[in-house]
């Protein structure tokens, strides 16, 4: 049996994996951006127990 990675099915799987990968990367970037907005906007308060240390 020969291995043919260019089968149409492989293209479809690659497209699916690429899509999931890009979505995950975008999600990470979004969470990072949200974190930056939240901590720089001034409404972020450290828990009292953390401030003592």
């Amino acid at each position, binding site marked *: 049996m020969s291995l043919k990675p260019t089968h149409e099915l492989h293209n479809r799987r690659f497209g*699916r994996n690429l*899509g999931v990968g890009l979505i995950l990367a975008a999600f990470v970037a*979004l969470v990072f951006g949200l974190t930056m*907005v939240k901590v720089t906007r001034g409404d972020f308060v450290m828990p009292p127990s953390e401030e003592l240390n």
Partner: protein
Amino acid sequence: MSDVSFNTDLREDEAGFGDFFALLKPRVMSLVVFTAFVGLVAAPVPVHPLIGFSAILFIAIGGGASGALNMWWDADIDRIMRRTRNRPIPAGKVTEQDALAIGLALSGLSVMMLALATNLVAAAMLAFTIFFYVVIYSMWLKRSTPQNIVIGGAAGAFPPVIGWLAATGSMAVEPWLMFALVFMWTPPHFWALCLFMRSDYDDAGVPMLTVTHGRRATRVHILVYTILLAVLAVGAAFTGIGGPVYLTVSVVLNALFLLGAWRISRRDETASEVDNFLVERRFFRLSLLYLFLHFGAILIEAVLKPYGLGGWT
């Protein structure tokens, strides 16, 4: 013997990325995105653009998740109806288990992320919306009462309320006016679709009004609900979400919508068959424009307000 392993579990109809995306009902999602956006912008609280974007995104994902769960639950009737036959599950692209897993995972993710990005009240409302669409509408009402679309339509009406809550964190009358607009718009919109999809719901055994009370009664129902909708839609022009732009748009659209509903109520089945339900199809297309332009007008009023132009002040 070979050390090379090769996955022979090849399915020619294996799902691509687009098939999973189709599970989220992108067209319904576009309505969710737009109405939630209008709810968010109309709220009298400035929102950071990234937080606003995240709120809309997670509301859309929540809406998509409920669409996937709806497709999982309704796979049996989707196989029968012409309109839904090509959806990913009946087409054999995505398994029911995958749809359930994606629906549940995205539901949890969207609610959790909306809570983190905005507030718990908006997240709770999103969770309730998903519950309402999947459990109250899909699992309970859809197959048990001809009022399915009337009560179930509430699920599609919640996004502007969630958008408003994401911005303010508290309730007000204005988002519920937007809710009422979508809620009252849904029955005539869907019943017009039922009229020209003819035997679809009958074949699937879904007790749509056309099936239980007949097509004549459905035509009358469309007219009655359109009259109620017109009163509500034009009346909303004199509330906090309205203004001169909204009033103008609303009067024109409601006049056209009432005319369409009147024509539908006057037609019989023979006349409709002859022109392949032309009037009903036109009314359905107009209904899409109707909702888009009403929310567009609310958006314009909200955008103009900071410049002293929107609303009646």
